[in-house]
C-alpha cells in the first residue's frame, strides 16, 4: 500500500530545526498500526507526509499502491502535480483529524457524505449505516458546532470511512476524550476499518490504548542534535 525509504522532512533552522527521518516504512493492505510517541515527536508530520498534503524534502522511495496501480508520490511532488495528488487523496485516503476537521457550514449528514459526493458516488445508504454503527444517527441533521467533542470525532471517523478508502490515517482521534469515550471511539473506528479491510495508521500518545485495541505499535523517538535542533525517527521498523 505504502512503501517509504530514506524520507526526510525538515522545518525551521538552528535550535528551532525539526527533522523527521524515516529510514524505511511499509504499510500493507488491511494492516492496522499505531504510531505512538510523545507530543512533538513528528507523528502528525509523518501522517501529513503519508496523506500527501506535505511535501517531503527528499525520499529515495515513496510509492502508493492501490489494487491496480502504483504511484510515485515523490515524483508527483517534484513535478508539483497537485491535481493527481488531490485525486489520490480523494479516491484512496480517509483522514481523521484530532479536532474533527468538520466543515461548520454543513450538517453532519453532508459532512459524512462529502467524500462520496466528491467521487460522484450516490447515497447507497452507507451514510446512515455508518452513522448508526458509530452511534451518531440521531445527530445527522445537526451542525458540527452543536455536537460534543466525542460526537465530532465519531463524525470525523464516519467521514473518513464513507467512501471506502484503502488507507485510513488518524491523528490523535481520541486525545480530547475521557478514557471511557476514548476507548469507545477507538473500538468503533477499528471495528469499522476492519470490516472494510482498510489499512490503518493511527497516531496516538496513549500506547496502552493502542495495545488494548490490538494495534501493532510503531514508536517514534526524538533526539537533540549538536546544533540544538531535533531529529525524529521511527524506533523500530515493522
Amino acid at each position, binding site marked *: 500500500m505504502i512503501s517509504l525509504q530514506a524520507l526526510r522532512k525538515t522545518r525551521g533552522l538552528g535550535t528551532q530545526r525539526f527533522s523527521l527521518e524515516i529510514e524505511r516504512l511499509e504499510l500493507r493492505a488491511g494492516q492496522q498500526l499505531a504510531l505512538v510517541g510523545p507530543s512533538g515527536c513528528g507523528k*502528525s508530520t509523518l501522517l*501529513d507526509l503519508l*496523506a500527501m*498534503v*506535505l511535501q517531503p524534502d527528499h525520499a529515495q522511495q515513496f510509492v502508493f499502491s492501490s489494487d491496480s496501480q502504483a504511484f510515485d508520490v515523490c515524483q508527483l511532488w517534484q513535478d508539483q502535480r*497537485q*491535481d493527481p495528488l*488531490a*485525486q489520490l*487523496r*480523494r*479516491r484512496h*485516503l480517509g*483522514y481523521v*483529524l*484530532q*479536532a*474533527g*476537521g*468538520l*466543515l*461548520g*457550514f*454543513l450538517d453532519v449528514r*453532508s459532512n459524512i457524505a*462529502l*467524500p462520496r*459526493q*466528491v467521487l*460522484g458516488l450516490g447515497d447507497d445508504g452507507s451514510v446512515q449505516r455508518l452513522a448508526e454503527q458509530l452511534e451518531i444517527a440521531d445527530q445527522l441533521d445537526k451542525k458540527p458546532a452543536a455536537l460534543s467533542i466525542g460526537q465530532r470525532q465519531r463524525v470525523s471517523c464516519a467521514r473518513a470511512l464513507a467512501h471506502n478508502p484503502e488507507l485510513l490515517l488518524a491523528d490523535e482521534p481520541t486525545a480530547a476524550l475521557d478514557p471511557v469515550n476514548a476507548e469507545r471511539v477507538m473500538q468503533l473506528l477499528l471495528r469499522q476499518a476492519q470490516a472494510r479491510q482498510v489499512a490503518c495508521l493511527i497516531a496516538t500518545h496513549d500506547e496502552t490504548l493502542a495495545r488494548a485495541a490490538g494495534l501493532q505499535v510503531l514508536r517514534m523517538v526524538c533526539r537533540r542534535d549538536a546544533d540544538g535542533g531535533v531529529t525524529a525517527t521511527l524506533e523500530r521498523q515493522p
Partner: protein
Amino acid sequence: MMRPLLIAALAWQDYRNDARLSACSVLALVAVIAPLLVLFGLKFGLVSSLTERLERDPMVREIIPLGGGRFSADFVAELAERDDVAFALPRTRQIAATADLVLPARKVLVNVEMIPTALNDPLLQGLQVPSAIDQIVLSRTAAEKLGAQAGDQLDAAFTRQLAGQLQVQRSTLRVLAVLPLEAFERDALFAPLALLEAAEDYRDGRAVPALGWEGETDVGKAHRAYPAFRLYARNLSDVEPLRRFFADRQLLVSTQAPAIAQVQSLSRNLTLVFWIIAALALAGAFAAVCASALAAVERKRRELSVMRLLGFSTAALLAFVVLQALYSAVFAAGIGAALYALAESGLNQLFMQMPGEYASHLLPSHYLVALLAVLLASAAAAALGGWRVARIDACEGIRDV
C-alpha cells in the same frame, strides 16, 4: 473542473452560513450599482426624451432653401430618392401660392397660404393625403376661422391682375382632414402640387386647362422652374450632412442643425461624465471585491484546507471563492435594479413634462448589460483576490478545525 454543481452547492451553503458577512458584501456592491444605474438612467432618459422630442417634431428635420432658386422637378425628384431624405417636393412661388377660402354656409373669407403635399408628407402623418386637384387638408387655425371640418366643401377664389384688370377664378375644394395645431400653426391649405402650379400659372396669365381657366397657352410644363422645395431629412443625424450637401453646391439653406448639435453635444458630455464616474466607481468596487475575496480566503483558510485534504483541486477551491462573489453580484444586481426602479418612478413623477417622456429610463438591454458587467467584474476581482487559495496547503489549517 471537478463536479461544478457540488462546488456551487457547497459555496452556496457556506455563503448562507455566513449570512451577515454575505449581506455586507452584497450591500457594498449595491452601494456602487444603484447610484450608477440611477446616473445612467438619468443620462439615457434625459437625452432620449430630448432626442425623441426633436425627432417627433418634423419641423426640426426640415431643410428650407433661402433666397430665390431655380430648381427643376428632376432635381427635387433626385433629392427625394436619397437615403437621407424622407420627403422632398417642389414649391411654387410663395406670392402666387395663396387662396381665399369660404365655407358657403358661414361666408367668412380667409386668405391662406398654399403648401404642396404628397404621399409621405411628415406634417400629414396619420391623415388622409390629398391626391386629386380638388382635395385639401386644412391647418387647424384656418379650419377654426372658416368653421370647416373634414368632409366640408369650400369655395376657393384665385385672383390676378391682368392688363390692369382684376380677374378671379373659383373652384370647389373638399376638406379631407384638419391638421393638429402642433403640426402647423399658420393659416394654410395643403394641396397636391398640381393645384399650386395651377394657381401660379393662372396668376402668371397662363391657361389652366385642367380647371378650365383661360390664358396664354404657349408655355410648356417641361420648362417649369421652382423657386424652392419642401425637404425633410430622414433622421436628426441626416440634417447636418444634408446642410453640407447644399452648402457644397452654393445653396444657402436654413436648418435646425444647431439645436440638434446641442442635444448631441449634451449626450456626448453626459456620456463622458457617466463613464468617468462609472470607471471610478467600478475600480472601487473591483478593489473591494478583490479585498473581500482575499479576506474570505484568509477567514476560510481552515475550511479550504480541509477541502483540499478531501481532494478538492485548486481550480475547485478557486471556483468556491469566485462563486460566492457571483452570488453576491447577482443579489446586488437584483437589489440595485429594484432600488433604481423606485428612484426612476420618483424622478419621473417629479420631472416628467410630457406623456411618454422620461427623466430617468432604462431599457431591458441596459439591465442585462449591467448584470453581465457586475458578474464579470465580480468574478475577475474574486479570482484575483482568491488566487491566494492556490497557495493553501492542506496541512496548513487542518490542525485547527
